[in-house]
């Protein structure tokens, strides 16, 4: 009997607000929204603008360049997949287009730093690809 290799938990592909975001990841596009009326950037995805009352939002693709706003090194986790990956770095990335997202940062813990320039890469799965950032 071989133990199953634990797999990364994946997002629900059909959650109504975030489904387009995850669908776009299949073609390696990191998308965010811009309000067509006031120009605000909206992230995470929604059906309404949080800056004005508009319901008209445009999807844009990010160039995937940003900096580490802050991070942590996870050294204890209850989930088998994440336990198999310990220690790993996760943090908030400020993207050049003006949004902040949580993501894994593929960097040795000792090299992780606030302000580290990073660029987007992808980890492919059957239904979605997961954005992961690497040092730029």
């Amino acid at each position, binding site marked *: 009997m071989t133990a199953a290799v634990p797999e*990364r*938990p*994946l*997002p*629900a592909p059909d*959650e*109504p*607000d*975030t489904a387009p*975001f*995850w669908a776009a990841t299949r073609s390696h596009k990191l998308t965010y929204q811009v309000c067509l009326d006031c120009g605000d*950037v909206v*992230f*995470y*995805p*929604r059906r309404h603008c949080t800056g004005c009352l508009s319901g008209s939002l445009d999807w844009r693709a990010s160039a995937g360049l940003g900096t580490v*706003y*802050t*991070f*942590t*090194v*996870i*050294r*204890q*986790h*209850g*989930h088998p*997949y*994440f336990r198999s*990956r310990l220690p*790993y770095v*996760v*943090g*908030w990335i*400020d993207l050049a287009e*003006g*949004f*902040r*997202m*949580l*993501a*894994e940062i593929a960097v040795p*813990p000792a090299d992780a*730093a*606030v*302000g580290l320039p990073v660029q987007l890469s992808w980890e492919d799965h059957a239904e979605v690809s*997961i954005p992961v950032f690497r040092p730029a």
Partner: protein
Amino acid sequence: MPGAAIAGIHEFDKRVAGGLSKLQIKAECARLALADAGLTWADVDAVYDAGESGFGSGLTIAEYFGVNPRVVDTTSVGGSSYEFHAAHAARDIAAGACRVALLTYGSTAHSESRAIGTGARRPPAEPQPAANMDLPYGMTLIGSYATVAQRHMAQYGTTAAQLAEIAVTTRAHAVRNPAAVAGLADIGIKRTGEITVDDVLGSRLIADPLHLLDCCIVSDGGGAVVIVSADVASDIRKPPVWILGSGEAVGYPGFGSDITTTAAVSSGPEAFGQAGIGPDEIDIAMIYDSFTITVLAILEDLGFAKKGEGGPYVAGGRLRFDQPGGPALNTDGGGLSSNHPGMRGIFLLIEAVRQLRGESTSQVPGARLAVAHGNGGQLGSRHAAGTVILGRE
């Protein structure tokens, strides 16, 4: 005097519930808090509940206790729920909607072996959009707070040793609290004596830069608070503790927002403004201590120290109950060393009342004013802030 006072309190005395249910813990605490006030079930005309016992708790609780409330408030904002409840009860009483408000909490987190801090975040049946974005990355609750500490260090030069001072202070207070000491032993913590900064720094990292001893314990527990109108307060067993002001706020991530600044920056000034006092007048600071960084950031946001200067502020044992130069912090031992069943906001109110009655195991002589600040959700992510200012006559 102002319109609403805390008349009765009770804290469940054990940290391992021994097979009791959450409802049983809530009811035990409720009847003993009512007895503390010299009131009974029939006097209760308002219930406040955070829903930890299950769906539809506003219905469940009234029937289970056997009360007939005219006000039912099921505000649920994590560990800060009880500060929100106290604020709402004071407003409801001032509006004449009720006279005797009952707040209760019960948890069996330890008995259920719930890995609150590092557990796998299981996707809910109907995922929320925010959670659906974060889910693949295995961010833990502790990790979320750790991102605040990391940024605080990078931005202001705060050190791990300064954060550790907070854990050292709360443990010193816990050691004086027999229920806390017994509880630490009951949940399997071997060293129940005082700890040093080096002990904290020498404990293993859970999520950098937070060590094991920067984190709260996981216990069972519960409590109850009875809040009454001025006319009821004139005829109770213990000295009333008045609610002088309150503030509520929420915070969430966003581009350009400062992760080291919590929603306390909004709730604090509102509460202090209503009370007509400033942080320098506070004798007792009951600050939600899920982690050391929680206290540091909130002390700054409430105005005890300037933003970024919390590190030097907490150094040197300033927040010990017997030290001058600042308020006494979490004199029951806090979530770091007394009890943390998941949502410990009710204990902040309870210990503040003990201090203002002169009943604490780390009593500050003549304590007159206290702040209870609850933090719910996760700092560094979505979180709620409830500030309540309390005073004795």
